[in-house]
């Protein structure tokens, strides 16, 4: 089916096959949108900016996220750093071969200067893209190149000298397209075989499977409680990662026989029985606050909580009132006590 489409494409349908659909783009429309700059600098507008001007723009509009020297790791990965004067000479960044070097900055990886100009022009600053003038883009690029030992200060980057500056990009010779992961024939002859060649052994395969890597115990709950990230019905349940590993027998047995745990379970059953959970999620605000949030605020204050449950209230968590609840005193006390000890499971 797809091959047939290809054959049609080669035949080139007449351009008026769909009358009444689409119109010619005007020159000003194309100019407004066609802003891309290619590696050979096709599309680059005329202009210029100095390292000093770039530093001013950078400190005003870029440094908050990227750091004054482009080194910050707070919001985005570091942009600047890791390149040397030797890299500029060689066109290869030596730190990319080091497994002990902690970072791969933009300037370490980048081979094409056009990319830097194009992306800053189309997408920066992050919260106000396309707000820089052409000369400001030149200036910011000049400042970044200066921080990377590519250009001196003073230096003015312009459409006239940018092709020469390209010849000083630290990783300009660091790329290859010799691989089988481009889904077309546009590169001409390149590696056409994938770089791995597994075979489909079926019986007694030459492997002695040993667990070589698994998550450390301290990371067990790092992605939140996995119990709450699995469906409540089906062949499996999510593991309760607030508890120790289910495979550790002491933890499992201990939890099962603890009277406190039994009390928690009974209290949580009361929440369902008296419809508390219609408005209060265990860990999530619904109409009212999350029960874990209530537990935090009224830690150890069971008496206060009994009154709150029986009489209702408004204003502590927002404008939606909680009506007085009609439930047996014993149940209210049990729920209050459970909340006061932190709403444990």
């Amino acid at each position: 089916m797809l091959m047939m489409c290809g054959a049609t494409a080669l035949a080139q349908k007449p351009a008026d096959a769909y009358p009444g659909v689409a119109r010619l783009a005007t020159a000003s429309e194309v100019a407004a949108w066609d802003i891309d700059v290619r590696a050979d600098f096709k599309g680059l507008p005329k202009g210029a900016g100095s390292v000093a001007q770039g530093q001013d723009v950078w400190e005003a509009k870029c440094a908050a996220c990227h750091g004054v020297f482009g080194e910050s790791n707070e919001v985005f990965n570091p942009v600047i750093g890791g390149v040397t004067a030797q890299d500029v000479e060689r066109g290869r960044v030596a730190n990319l071969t080091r497994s002990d070097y902690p970072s791969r900055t933009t300037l370490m990886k980048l081979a094409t200067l056009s990319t830097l100009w194009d992306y800053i022009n189309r997408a920066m600053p992050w919260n106000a893209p396309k707000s820089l003038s052409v000369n400001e883009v030149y200036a910011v690029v000049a400042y970044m190149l200066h921080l990377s030992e590519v250009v001196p200060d003073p230096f003015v980057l312009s459409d006239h000298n940018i092709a020469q500056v390209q010849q000083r990009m630290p990783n300009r010779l660091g790329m290859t397209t010799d691989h089988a992961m481009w889904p077309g024939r546009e590169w001409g002859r390149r590696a056409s075989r994938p770089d791995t060649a597994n075979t489909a052994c079926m019986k007694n395969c030459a492997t002695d499977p040993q667990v070589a890597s698994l998550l450390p115990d301290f990371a067990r709950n790092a992605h939140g409680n996995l119990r709450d990230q699995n469906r409540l019905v089906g062949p499996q349940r999510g593991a309760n990662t607030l508890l120790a590993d289910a495979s550790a027998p002491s933890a499992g047995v201990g939890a099962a026989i603890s009277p406190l745990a039994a009390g928690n379970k009974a209290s949580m059953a009361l929440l369902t029985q008296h419809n508390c959970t219609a408005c209060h999620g265990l860990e999530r605000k619904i109409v009212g606050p999350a029960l874990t949030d209530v537990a935090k605020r009224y830690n150890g204050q069971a008496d206060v909580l009994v009154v709150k449950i029986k009489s209702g209230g408004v204003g502590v968590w927002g404008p939606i009132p909680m009506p007085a609840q009609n439930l047996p005193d014993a149940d209210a006390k049990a729920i209050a006590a459970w909340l006061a000890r932190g709403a444990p499971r």
Partner: protein
Amino acid sequence: MKPDTPHGRLRKAPEHFLNAHQWQTVVSEWRLGRRGFFEKALAGALAGGSALALAQTNPVGPEGGDPHILNLPEHAKGLGLGVATDGYGKPSRFEANVQRRQSPGLTQTTQASVSFAPLQSLFGIVTPSGLHFERHHQGWWDIDPSKHRFMVNGWVQKPLVFTVDEIMRLPSQSRFHFIECGANTAVEWAQVAVPTVQYTHGMISCSEFTGVPLITLLEMAGADLKNGRFVLAEGGEGSSMTRTIPMSLITSGEVMVAYGQNGEMLRPENGYPLRLVVPGVQGVSWVKYLRRVEVGDQPYATKDEAIHYMDLLPNGTHRQYTSLQECKSVVTTPSGGQVLLDQGFYNISGLAWSGRGKVKRVDVSVDGGRNWRSARLQSPVLSKALTRFNIDWVWDGKPAIIQSRAIDETGFVQPTYAQLRAVRGTRSIYHNNAIQSWWVQESGEVKNVQVA
């Protein structure tokens, strides 16, 4: 219908659970007031199967039966809700755990970030649109389609502008394709880093996309399809994301300007009202909020082709323009972070896919890769779409390591971690398609592991 049409051409329940003679008897007995016969006849029909052993997880209670059977629930004794209670229906309230999620600590902002699809909870091959993974570079927008435009320029005879109305007037196609982020499974290159399949593999989704082949739009503009070997696709949002698309993939008819997803319009998070669909290619090329394509004779070295989405080799060289998603698979149930309820029968189920075409075969091992059995591929098996596989397994309560290994129609076999690292090292980020291992412990808890 003609009066002489033979009986049996139309099947109506419940009469045709019975043969004609039985039905005659039912009618005559009913007339005599002996309606109990009907139940007996049905019970007899049902008893034809083998006797069911009671599942251990549902023991008979002291009342002599399951209270959920013996005591009729509210919904069996009351009046339910009416039609159109919810004009755009939502999942059951019991499905609230099935959510797309961020991986804590992966990114510092939510606008330049990713959320992962809950593969552990999905069936078949279609990802519900609301659970589709997200990857935004500068936040998402809900764009007014009446104000959105699409432009074709560059090496064309006539640069054109389309409204969304006009795109939707053209002959359309609907096809199922997977979209996988090039960075799916990225955090696992060096060692295990995350607990569940949602976080290891959740940057993949599969939808039926509806739209217009891009080649149609290029032909309308009179594009130079011979010399214009590269096409730039550009988005309309803040970062105006750009990527280079191979012309050969466009002339094959596969690349599509899509507006539809799973029978409805694209979701805003997925590029409403227009996105590019580039089958087999990593998600970053499926440009969202698509505003423009430009035909040219060179690749464009865009930000996500020159700084990210490249593959670092051990010698410090980057492979650039690595776009294709190679053959890969993963078992989704049972999978990391789940606990098996009991010993006994399980249906091991998972997903397989290849950016080079159809999945040909999936093998499953439960002993860490020493012995393998071929799984059942569930139809449909489509090119560059997810394929669902299933295989029977009886768990004896002993530790097991479950793996799946996909083979695509080119004969490519999904690699092991050792094979992948031998060529690309451990510092790579993108295109990790290694075989995944899940360790089923004696407790029933499943953990993400890598085997040596």
